[in-house]
C-alpha cells in the first residue's frame, strides 16, 4: 500500500499539466480552480468560495524554459520564469483566479504581469500584516480576507456564509493536522519516513482536494506503522531556506543518501503555515486572521523585529527536532532567504551548531557537489562533533 500511495503522489508531482485539477473541474460542473504561489495564502477561503485550491510551484527540473526567460533578468530566481512558462504554454488555463502572496518583490511583480497577460483571470496580491501590534494586524488582515471572499465569490457565484467558512476552516485544520502528524512521525522515526516520500506527499496535497490528501496521509502513516524500518546511524539535520522555490527531488534524495536524516525543513511551508487549529468559534474570518497573526511559524517572509530572536531561531528549531546540524539550502537569487541566512547561520554557529550552505535552483540537474558537501558534513557531525543540540 505504501508504494501505491507514494506512486500516486509522485504521479501528481510530476504532472505539469495539472490533470488532477482538470479532472476535478470536469467532475464538478460549476466548480472553479484557484491557483496560488508560495509561500502562504488562506486556502480555506478559496475552498469556501467553491474553488479547488491549486498550488503553483513552478516546473521543477521537468520543464524547458523558452518563454519564461523573456520576462525576467538573469539575476532573478528561477521560479517565476517556470511559472510564466507553465502559463504561456497553456498549462494553467483552467485557473479562474490566481493569488500572489507577499513573499517578495518578484512574486509581487509576477502578479502585475498576470493582470496584463490574463485580464480574464482574477488576480490578487495578498498583503499580510507585518506590524507588531496584534490588534491592528488582525483588524487589517480580517478586512483583507473579507475583500478576498467578496472578490472570489463574484468569480464563482458562490458567496459562503459563516457556516460554510467554518466547514472549510475545519477541513484545512484537518489537513494541517495530517501534515503535522507526518512531520512528527518523521522526526521520531526518520528511517521509516524518508523526506523524499514526505515531500512527494506534500506536493500531491497541493493539487488534490484536502479530503483526498488527508485520507492518503492516514493510509500512509498506517502503512509505515505496520512495516517499521531499521534505524541507521545517520546525522540528524535541519534543512532550511527552501520555503518558496522548491528544491529538485534529486537534491532531497542526495542529502538523504549522503547519510543525513532530515528531521525538520521548510518545504511547501504554506501548507502548514498556521501551526495550530484555527478556532471554529465566532467570526471565521476573524479567527483565520487571528491564527495568521498569532502563528508561530517564523520564516524569512514575515518581518521579525527582534534580531536576537532571529539569531536564536535555528538553534531552537534544531533543539526541537533533535538535530545536530543545519543545512542552508537556498534557491539562487532568493532575496528573503539569502538576506536572512548570514544572521541565522551566525546565530546557529554561536550556539555550537555546525552548518553548511549551498544554493540550488528548481531545475538543478547535477547533484554531485551537494552529495559531496552533505556527505562530508554528515561525516563531520558523526565523527567530530558533540551530539544533538
Amino acid at each position, binding site marked *: 500500500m505504501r508504494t501505491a500511495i507514494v506512486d500516486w503522489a509522485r504521479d501528481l508531482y510530476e504532472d505539469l499539466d495539472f490533470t488532477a485539477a482538470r479532472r476535478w473541474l470536469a467532475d464538478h460542473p460549476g466548480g472553479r480552480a484557484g491557483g496560488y504561489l508560495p509561500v502562504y495564502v488562506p486556502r480555506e477561503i478559496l475552498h469556501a468560495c467553491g474553488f479547488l485550491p491549486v498550488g503553483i510551484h513552478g516546473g521543477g527540473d521537468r520543464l524547458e524554459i523558452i518563454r519564461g526567460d523573456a520576462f525576467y533578468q538573469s539575476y532573478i530566481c528561477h521560479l517565476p520564469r517556470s511559472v510564466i512558462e507553465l502559463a504561456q504554454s497553456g498549462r494553467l488555463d483552467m485557473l479562474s483566479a490566481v493569488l500572489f502572496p507577499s513573499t517578495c518583490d518578484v512574486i509581487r511583480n509576477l502578479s502585475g504581469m498576470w493582470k496584463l497577460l490574463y485580464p480574464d483571470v482574477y488576480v490578487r496580491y495578498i498583503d499580510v500584516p507585518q506590524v507588531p501590534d496584534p490588534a491592528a494586524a488582525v483588524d487589517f488582515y480580517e478586512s483583507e480576507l473579507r475583500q478576498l471572499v467578496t472578490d472570489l465569490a463574484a468569480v464563482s457565484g458562490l458567496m459562503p456564509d459563516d457556516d460554510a467558512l467554518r466547514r472549510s476552516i475545519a477541513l484545512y485544520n484537518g489537513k494541517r493536522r495530517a501534515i503535522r502528524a507526518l512531520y512528527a512521525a518523521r522526526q521520531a522515526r526518520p528511517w521509516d519516513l524518508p523526506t523524499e516520500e514526505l515531500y512527494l506527499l506534500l506536493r500531491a496535497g497541493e493539487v488534490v482536494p484536502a479530503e483526498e490528501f488527508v485520507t492518503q496521509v492516514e493510509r500512509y502513516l498506517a502503512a509505515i506503522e505496520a512495516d517499521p524500518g531499521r534505524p*541507521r*546511524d545517520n546525522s540528524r539535520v535541519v534543512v532550511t531556506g527552501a520555503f518558496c522555490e522548491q528544491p529538485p527531488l534529486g537534491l532531497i534524495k542526495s542529502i538523504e543518501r549522503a547519510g543525513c536524516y532530515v528531521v525538520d525543513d521548510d518545504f511547501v511551508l504554506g501548507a502548514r503555515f498556521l501551526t495550530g487549529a484555527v478556532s471554529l468559534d465566532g467570526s471565521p474570518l476573524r479567527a483565520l486572521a487571528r491564527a495568521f497573526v498569532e502563528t508561530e511559524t517564523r520564516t524569512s517572509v514575515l518581518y521579525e523585529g527582534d534580531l536576537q530572536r532571529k539569531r536564536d531561531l535555528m538553534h531552537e528549531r534544531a533543539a526541537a527536532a533533535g538535530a545536530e546540524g543545519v543545512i542552508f539550502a537556498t534557491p539562487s537569487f532568493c532575496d528573503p532567504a539569502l538576506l536572512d541566512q548570514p544572521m541565522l547561520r551566525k546565530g546557529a554557529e554561536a550556539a555550537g551548531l555546525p552548518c553548511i550552505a549551498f544554493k540550488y535552483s528548481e531545475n538543478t540537474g547535477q547533484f554531485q557537489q551537494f552529495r*559531496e558537501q552533505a*556527505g*562530508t558534513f554528515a561525516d563531520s557531525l*558523526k*565523527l567530530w562533533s558533540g551530539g544533538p543540540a
Partner: protein
Amino acid sequence: MTTISAGIDVGSGAVKVTVMDTDGADDHRMLAKVSERIRRREVMKVVDEAYQSALDQSGVELIHYIATTGEAGEVPFATGHFYGMTTHARGALYLAPESRAVLDVGALHTRALAIDAHGRVTDYKMTSQCASGSGQFLENIARYLGVSHEEIGSLSQAATQPEKVSSICAVLAETDVINMVSRGITTADILRGVHDSMAERFARLLRSLEFDGPVFVSGGLASDAGMLAALRDALERKASQDGRSREVVTHADAIFAGAIGAALWGGFRYRKLGQGGVAWQARAAVA
C-alpha cells in the same frame, strides 16, 4: 574491549569488504579482506557475496557496526554510511600513518585529499566530469591494445620512447591511441604515454593542495607500478618548478583503503555512541 566492524566499499568496478578488530587505540587488526569485481552483475548480489566471504574468512561470530562507503548508500543491512573521502583518508592513515595526502584513483574519477594526522580531510580536489583521469579509461585503452590488467604496469615500465597522449579528454586520448597503433608505436610506449598523461593530471590535482608529507595512492590503480612510476616522475617535474618534493607511497592493500576506513570509522562511531548491540551475529552464536 574490542569492537568488530565491517567496511563495505562499493566502487564503480568492484566491491571491497574488510572486517576489522578495532580497540579504540591504534592497535587495529584486519581480520578479513575481500575484493569482488562487479562485471555487469547486480551490485547488491556482489555485495552480499563479498560480505559473506569476508565473514567466513574472518571467523568472527558478531559484527558491532557495518559501515558502508562509496556507492553503497543503499545496502539494507548497514549500520551507517561514510562518505568516500572520509574513509579513504582514514584507510590511508591505517596503511601508511605518515601520509598527509591521498590520491584515490577509482574506476570513474580521481580525488586528491589533504589530510591531517587524525584522518580529517582538510582540503580536496576532484577530476571533473572528464573520464581521462580514471581507471576505467586505462582499462579501456588496455582492452583496445589487447593487454591484461596485470600486464599494464610492467609493460609501461619497459617503455623506451613514450608517446604523448591528450591529457584533457578521454575521447581525444582514445583517438590518439588508435593513431599510435596505426603508426606502429609499441604497446609499451603507448601505455607509458597514457600513464604520463594521467599522472600529469594527478600531479596538477595534488599541487593545488597544501599538505606536508607523503602522498598515499589508494584505489584500483595503486597496484599499477607503471602508474606509480609515472606519478613519481610527474611530481618530480613539478618539484623542479615549485621546489616542493612530494613522496609517493602505497601499500599492497591500498585497494581496500575505503573499506578499511569505513570499518575503522564504524568502530569509532560504535564506541562514541556507546549504545551497545550488534549489527550482525552468527546463528550459532545466537543459539
